[in-house]
């Protein structure tokens, strides 16, 4: 594992860090690179940049490197780093902000598995008001063209009655859809979330 950010030029976007700080409500300048976050992160083994490196990259204004990293999508939001950080840097809130920015700026590679999952998840909520798990699983299969993994598991879950065939029914699903519409309007106005 490499602990120092690799080959980075330090001429970055000076407006980036203040924007992330404001949107996330987190003062990342407090970070003194002690590595507690990265050493305790359960998914660090598969990240391209470790959590403390992400913080450093944001401080340096290396916007594109951060927003196109796999790390911001891999972060499982388990809150371990935030709980143990001696400087109270809420890294999960920073990750939330970076994901929202990456989507807003459309820099995410097309068809990225985790993003496809999130979009499908939310379009189901928009449609039904609650998650319709069977439909979520089937759509993910089609969208990622991965038909065979977990096939046996899925069939077993159906047999065990773990997947409901009928979609959820809400009386006021229009109220939920109206929330999504207002969010779309905020995003269209370019408001950070």
């Amino acid at each position, binding site marked *: 594992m490499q602990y120092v950010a690799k080959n980075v030029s330090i001429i970055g976007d000076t407006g980036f860090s203040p924007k992330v700080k404001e949107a996330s409500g987190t003062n990342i300048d407090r970070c003194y690179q002690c590595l507690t976050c990265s050493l305790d992160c359960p998914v660090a083994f598969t990240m391209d940049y470790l959590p403390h490196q992400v913080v450093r990259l944001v401080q340096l204004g290396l916007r594109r490197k951060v927003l196109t990293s796999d790390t911001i999508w891999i972060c499982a939001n388990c809150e371990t780093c935030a709980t143990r950080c001696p400087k109270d840097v809420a890294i999960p809130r920073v990750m939330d902000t970076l994901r929202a920015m990456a989507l807003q700026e459309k820099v995410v590679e097309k068809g990225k598995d985790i993003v496809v999952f999130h979009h499908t998840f939310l379009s189901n909520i928009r449609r039904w008001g609650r998650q319709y798990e069977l439909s979520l699983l089937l759509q993910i299969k089609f969208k990622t063209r991965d038909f065979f993994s977990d096939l046996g598991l899925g069939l077993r879950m159906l047999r065990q009655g773990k997947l409901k065939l009928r979609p959820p029914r809400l009386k006021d*699903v229009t109220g939920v859809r109206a929330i999504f519409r207002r969010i779309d309007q905020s995003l269209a106005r370019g408001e950070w979330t």
Partner: protein
Amino acid sequence: MDVKYTYYPGCSLEATAGEYDRSVRAVCAHLGIELQELSDWSCCGASSGHSTNRQLARALAGRNLALAERVGLDMAVACPACYLQLRSTCREVRDNSQNREELVRLIDMPYEARYDTRHLLDIIYNDIGLEELKKKVVRPLEALPLVSYYGCYLVRPPEVVGFDDSENPQSMDKLLAALGAEVKDWSGKVNCCGGGLSLNRREIAGRLVAEISEMACRAGAQAMVTACPLCHSNLEMRQADGKQNKLPVFYFTELIGLAVGIDEAASWMRKHLISPSSLLASHDL
């Protein structure tokens, strides 16, 4: 004692975690906790909502909080992801009037954050208490070696949730011990199982689950106990991938149901992907 809550089941409890929902309702009725299901509840905004758009996540949670406020009771939640999402939204509204105005605009409903959201483990442990629970045990889970697995959102971040210690929580351990089980101490209780990545990065979730189940085995446990529908699915699904010895996973409410003698308890566990029947039979349960 009058213990009454609105009940927010959450999406998983309608399908993959149907047995959790059934056991929660039966156990609460048995223990004298009155649950009134929140009428027309919707997704809480956790998971994908929270991962991609904080405003959306807040608004989705806010709709449910506003509905519950009309009922005028604190809310009981079964799923820790919903629990954190609902609690943090309530907290953000209490902290800052600008957040409240923005939320009210998005959901187009009044909301004052007057009531609390609590997890059922907290309610059973603190409102009912271990002494009361012990009195109701008719079939002690004697010599059943278990570990309690808390995962992430029951205990983290402590400033938002935190009815128990964030590094070494004890409530579920003590509760299971009160049911007569042999609760093993272990260091995996607040590890993340990678449930959020279970469907889109299987290999990551598989590795985390393997680590957790190995730790549980080394501690001498023959099953794991959880209070989270996402951990339950993930621990069952991703253990099934591996070759290691598969440990059954229980919801804590299923074990309460079993110990206090609720007849239908056996039918809840028939939905599990890793059958606990031989383990229970070997302990005369």
